[in-house]
């Protein structure tokens, strides 16, 4: 069976070769090779890749796809040991926009004896063994705003203090752009 496939592939390659120059073929080949890395990159205006992460406590995991139809704010923490005080502003904003269905998730990475923040929000653990789908970025802290259609609208990087200062105006502007729940629903 694979032999037939290889013959078919060779035939397709021959057609391709007759149509295109060598340099174009090289570009296409490179596109195939780097397809995976292109797909995993985050781009504003593109769908945010789906992922499932376990809870940092004993609780259910969360899957991004299940939130389709709701605006989602993801806060990816850098090293954090019970850093709930630094996250008060995000929690406050979540309460402000609760009626607009805003979902706020905190993504925490375990390091040595650090403990996750204690918040009344889903705190997820970036567990390389258990996580599925999107890999948590190395560049963090980061804040991502994903709209009701699952599209990444904003990506902000910087310290938690800086993000806390920006989140109020950022969310207010974002909600006015169409994330607010339509009147009457």
């Amino acid at each position, binding site marked *: *069976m*694979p032999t037939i*496939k*290889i013959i*078919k*592939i060779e035939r*397709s*390659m021959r*057609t*391709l070769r007759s*149509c*295109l120059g060598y340099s174009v073929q090289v570009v*296409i080949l490179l596109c*195939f090779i780097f397809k995976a890395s292109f797909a995993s990159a985050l781009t504003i205006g593109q769908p945010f890749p789906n992922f*499932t*992460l*376990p*809870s940092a406590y*004993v*609780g*259910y*995991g*969360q*899957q991004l796809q*299940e939130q389709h139809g709701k605006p989602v704010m993801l806060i990816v923490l850098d090293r954090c040991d019970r850093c709930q005080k630094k996250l008060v502003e995000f929690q406050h904003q979540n309460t402000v926009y609760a009626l607009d269905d805003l979902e706020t998730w905190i993504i925490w990475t375990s390091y040595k004896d650090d403990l996750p923040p204690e918040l009344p929000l889903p705190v997820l653990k970036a567990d390389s*063994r*258990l*996580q*599925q789908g999107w890999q948590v970025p190395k560049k963090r802290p980061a804040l991502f705003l994903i709209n009701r259609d699952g599209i990444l609208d904003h990506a902000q990087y910087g310290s938690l203090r800086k993000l806390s200062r920006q989140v109020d105006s950022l969310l207010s502007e974002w909600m006015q752009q169409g994330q607010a729940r339509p009147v009457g629903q």
Partner: protein
Amino acid sequence: MKYIIIAFTFFTFIAQAQQPVLNKDIAAAKKAVIELNQELSQLEQELLSPKGTGVAFYFSLRGGQYFVPLAVEISAQGLTSIHHVYTEKEVDALRMGAVHPVGQSNLGAGKHKINIKVRGVNQQGDPVTLNFEDEVEKSSEPLKLEVSVRDDKNARKANAQLAVW
């Protein structure tokens, strides 16, 4: 200058005349790329997962009163570890009788020890891990295995077991 303008007009005219041929070539190239991509994907699938070595794992929950699953991990020698983290909606579906396809992998023919860890919480909300190992025999036929967690009302706890479909 006059010759340059004449040459430019001539090349533009030639380029325009060749446009339909070029468009046809581009369309053929696009088609070839799409076909190539499909065939490569099929070949990759056939090489990585030959039908005879396929093993599929499923998860089910009977009851769910004494144990709530949060994650399942399946491992064996020669098997790429398979895991899944359950969300509240998925657990609700399992409680209603849904069977979750956890994942597929490959195993050679023969006897294999499969290690299964089901992490979850008990009725009191305390973390509990149902950890067990079972031996299965793989023939040349595809194998379907079901990890089943059932409530034991007499012992007031849940038990996990592996069953061959």
